């Protein structure tokens, strides 16, 4: 599970001065749960996810992922997570199959089980037709499927997914949502950041709304409806940000 405790991140910029990107955020995500992290651009979602993935060091506070502390045991934490960054980040000169084999080695997987797992993922995400095409020749959807496969590759107990369906067509987004649901059913702990309200409503068991680095609220859809008196997540989200739906 993920346990985030009073996590903060401050950046010092010569031009902008001190900027509190994340300010005392606390929440937890249980096994078999999809937790949606929602917020406008610049709210602190990506910084939070980067801290949990041990890419950034918190200025204060900490978090544990599957029992390992992100500050004291970053190496152990990285063994527990499958991380999908908002930019996909695929090697242009490698094919999806080569990329997956490379990451299987980084995750200390044995060659035999790695090949078997890669074959499974290629089939599950409908990637066989482009598994041997170089990254620079792939469409956005193909790249995102590859990035998802990379995150799922070593069957990690925790998934951190930053806007996994951003810019994708409906069928590809559906494939990725199915993969997330399958991970949930398998008992994985999924932290899911998105801008797509319908998707969050459909996928997430609980939702946290973050704005200006602070977590405004956390709850199930029912709890959020009760707290705001609004029906749709889009209206709830705007209400929490102090804005009115059109």
């Amino acid at each position, binding site marked *: 599970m993920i346990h985030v405790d009073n996590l903060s991140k401050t950046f010092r910029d010569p031009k902008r001065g001190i900027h509190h990107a994340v300010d005392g955020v606390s929440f937890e995500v249980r096994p078999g749960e999809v937790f949606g992290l929602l917020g406008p651009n610049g709210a602190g979602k990506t910084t939070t996810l980067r801290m949990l993935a041990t890419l950034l060091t918190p200025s204060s506070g900490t978090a544990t992922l599957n029992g390992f502390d992100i500050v004291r045991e970053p190496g152990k934490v990285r063994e527990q997570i499958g991380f*999908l960054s908002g930019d996909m980040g695929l090697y242009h000169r490698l094919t999806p199959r080569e990329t997956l084999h490379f990451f299987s080695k980084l995750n200390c997987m044995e060659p035999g089980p790695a090949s078997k797992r890669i074959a499974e993922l290629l089939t599950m995400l409908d990637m066989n037709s482009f598994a041997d095409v170089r990254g620079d020749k792939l469409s956005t959807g193909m790249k995102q499927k590859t990035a998802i496969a990379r995150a799922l590759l070593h069957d990690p107990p925790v998934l951190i997914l930053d806007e996994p369906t951003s810019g994708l067509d409906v069928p590809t987004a559906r494939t990725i949502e199915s993969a997330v649901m399958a991970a949930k059913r398998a008992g994985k702990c999924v932290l899911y950041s998105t801008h797509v309200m319908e998707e969050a409503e459909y996928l997430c068991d609980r939702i946290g709304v973050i704005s200006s680095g602070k977590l405004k609220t956390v709850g199930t859809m029912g709890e959020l409806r009760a707290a705001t008196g609004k029906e749709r997540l889009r209206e709830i989200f705007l209400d929490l940000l102090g804005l009115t739906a059109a």
Partner: protein
Amino acid sequence: MRPFIVKAIFQREMLDMVRDRRALISMVVVPLFVFPLLISVMTRIIPRIQEKSQTEAKSASIAVHVTTPGLRPALEQAGMKVVEADDLKAAVLNKTVSAGVEETPGTPPAIQIYMDNANTTSTATGDRIREVLLDARNKQVRESLKSSGLDPQILTPYTVVRTNIAGDKKMSGAAWGSMLGYVLLLLMFTGGMYPVIDMTAGEKERKTIEAFLASPARRSEIVLGKTLAAAIATLATAALTLGSLVYSVKNNASKLQGGAGSANAGQIMGTIPLDAHSLALITAALVPMALFAASVMFAIALIARSYKEAQTYLMPLVFVVIFPALLGGLPGLEFSHALYLIPIFNTSQIIHGVLLGDVNMVNYGITLAANLVYAGIAFFLATRMFQDERVLFRS
């Protein structure tokens, strides 16, 4: 440090490198084709230009203002066409004639040859005129001595002959050693530059770095895997440069002239003093240098946010490389052991020494040890920087 992770990163970088057109151009195409092309130009075009100038000089038009008897006929007999011109200098500069000859009265009279050294035909004509006039003067002196009843031999009571005892191998070492070190080191840096940029700033620009850093690979393993791949790129560039240069010169040895300042320059340049022992010594000296070059470039390129920015940071390094390499050519420089602590300079001097067959093993040891220490320091700095989120996520 887990070797299998380092190996995986190294292999991926190598695969990426051989598929990267820019890296291949700097690593393979430039070293393989630049020297054959340059030497081909040197051995084909330059002799042709010289030959053409000399042929033209034999029948060139010249303007002559002389009064001493016999000079004008001597020039005409040599095949030169004498034409009229009032202003000799202007006639040479506007190419009406290839050269001009003017006599200033006096005791003895002075003969001035005007030529335009920016024009090869004019230069060759001037040289030809000088030869003809000196022959005519010598002939006149000999005839005067004879008519006075003296033996012309009194002008040459003895001859002076210079004999080079260095031998072809040593001469070849001197000729090769003076340039090979600089060329190798310079191309090692330029050859490794693009792969290093691609694996640092390129990785940031393509946003591949986040997923990589979120993997269980440790930062030191990532830096080592990448640095080893970059070092291989610099060594590959050095090997290809050496191979291409040796092949080109050997195949054109007979056509090379004047390179070592002697008549058998071609033969000297063609006798490259590279036996297995020399090659092993040079290779062993280049390995720590390659690790040093790769680590330094890695640390510098890592600061950059983009490919372009990294190029801007690394380009001045080429000049930094040239400077210590040229230091060896400074007159009066005493080659103390301490000088071999200077990176780049030490390696270029060691290559020079190996090719001369005169390498001091103490200096060789200092060079290897110093470069390994510098490589270690640069690697340590690169690893520290790779752990700094301000460097990795600079925006």
